[in-house]
């Protein structure tokens, strides 16, 4: 069987594809350039700008901070978000409708406003340590993703399964871990990835909540760009891409990517 595909469809697809992939290729090219300034196509091939990331102390420290903050804030968001999503779905009928909206508010408020108010009303007001404020801010902005994604996967969960387990003698809390969680596992992993990536990439909250001696990678990147115009920026971006692709690859290997589309 032959299928006729309209030439415009092919052209349109190619355009979208270029739009999606083009910037990535440019960044990759620029990162490999042997020049001391950002340029594309690359002139000469070199890994020196990758080496440069690790040569600069600030980059080394902020990479670690970013990974730590992303991991910890995502964990906090999961610890709060999973029970919240569970309660919102399990007792949907009894709970007021606005309650689920409450958990989406952090993404509805412009992040700059959120960052500033966190700085003014939490960090300054309580004179809390910078690290804690930053962690709190990140946990707050990734929480909506966690609640949303896990709610979506709980929406198709039949709660009589939980009742079946309880009737068979499994206490409610144990049932939560042995029956409910395994069945929303893909949702939890998807939420983890989304939250992790959101935290790693965040600029607007972090710009207010970082301070002397503590910065995240995107903030360090901004600071670096203000002074230098070398391809280090591009090579850091490539590193971030590699990290993301690696996470995706692990997920693909273990679960298949299709669940992310669910």
């Amino acid at each position, binding site marked *: 069987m032959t299928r006729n595909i309209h030439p415009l469809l092919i052209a349109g697809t190619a355009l979208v594809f270029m739009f999606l992939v083009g910037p990535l290729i440019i960044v990759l090219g620029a990162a490999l350039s042997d020049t001391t300034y950002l340029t594309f196509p690359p002139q000469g091939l070199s890994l020196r700008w990758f080496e440069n990331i690790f040569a600069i102390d600030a980059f080394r420290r902020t990479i670690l901070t970013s990974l730590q903050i992303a991991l910890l804030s995502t964990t906090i968001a999961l610890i709060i978000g999973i029970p919240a999503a569970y309660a919102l779905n399990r007792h949907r009928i009894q709970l007021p409708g606005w309650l689920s909206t409450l958990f989406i508010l952090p993404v509805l408020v412009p992040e700059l406003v959120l960052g500033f108010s966190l700085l003014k009303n939490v960090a300054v007001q309580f004179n809390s340590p910078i690290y804690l404020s930053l962690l709190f801010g990140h946990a707050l902005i990734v929480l909506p993703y966690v609640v949303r994604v896990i709610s979506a996967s709980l929406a198709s969960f039949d709660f*009589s399964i939980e*009742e*079946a387990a309880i009737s*068979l*003698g499994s206490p409610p809390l144990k049932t939560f871990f042995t029956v409910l969680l395994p*069945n929303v596992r893909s949702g939890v992993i998807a939420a983890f990835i989304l939250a992790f990536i959101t935290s790693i990439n965040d600029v607007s909250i972090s710009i207010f909540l970082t301070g002397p001696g503590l910065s995240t990678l995107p903030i360090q990147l901004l600071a670096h760009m203000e002074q230098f115009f070398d391809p280090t920026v591009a090579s850091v971006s490539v590193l971030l891409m590699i990290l993301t692709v690696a996470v995706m690859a692990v997920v693909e290997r273990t679960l298949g990517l299709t669940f992310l589309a669910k």
Partner: protein
Amino acid sequence: MTHSLTLDSISAHYGTTKVLEDLSLAVGEGELVSLLGASGCGKTTTLRLVAGFLQPTSGTITLGGRDLTRLPPHQRDIGLVFQNYALFPHLSVADNVGFGLKQRGISGEAKTKRVTAMLERVGLAHLADRLPGALSGGQKQRVALARALVIEPPLLMFDEPLSNLDAKLRIDMRVEIRQLQRANGTTSVYVTHDQEEAFSISDRVAIMHAGRIMQLDTPERLYQRPANAFVARFVGFENLIPMTVVERDGAKITAEMAGGVRLTLGLEQFGDIPDRFILACRADGLQVTDNAAMEGIPATLGLRTYLGRAYQYQAETPAGPLIANGPLTRPLEPGVAAKLVPVPEQCTILSPE
């Protein structure tokens, strides 16, 4: 120790809605009692109260002398079979069935043995390693049944277990459920809205309406001797005719209905008849005849429908519209004047409310 279930004046209110009103019910050891009624009648609420997923406002629930009323659901030791099967999607068939045993600290070979024996009884031993997603509806319900039975609970409860199956499978499954329940002698409560299902599977049936039990009796008695107008309508007495006795003559009475129509009824066939009563007749209980000499309710026939075993007529009578059946050998046209003759076997006497 006997495993009888007793509900003693249970009321359940949610906010201002009264779901159950002063409901009492006793299910004997090894007995299967169905709760039958339309949605919203309180049958599922009753089941969930016994399971412990809901709390009654007042009243007590005891099972084999053990007070369940305030016991958390996971300590009640009740086997539940759900309408949508509620199998654990992430566990194999064998692990689904073994789940309750594991909670009871039974593991290793003892567990495997009991799971295998149970799966053999429901004919699914060859599917032990499958995940529930790979099973048909009937197979899923068998796994659910095995999972509830294997823990040998003192009480088994079914919540519309067959409503998601097709008609033929439903009949096969209900026979199977009844056989397993009989063989184990497990006290059982069975919730359904399907009258045929309830009558065929139960020792006794509780017909429920608006949070109350209207009548609790054997299927035979419910079908032949409903206690009130609600149950009579429920089991298919289409015609309820209020009447007043005008004359008593030994074994016979003469009674009058609206429109001045008089009928003679034999006490031998109907039992005691109070002075005011309701004559309840199925459509089969009012035979249509165009023989004007017969004693019966004069009627003008309306729409005729074909039932296969008889013709059914919508009839206008002095006592109001009635539904009556006539023989296939003699179809009558709309507008014909006829008599509706009560057939005692298909009629019963109710007290007026």
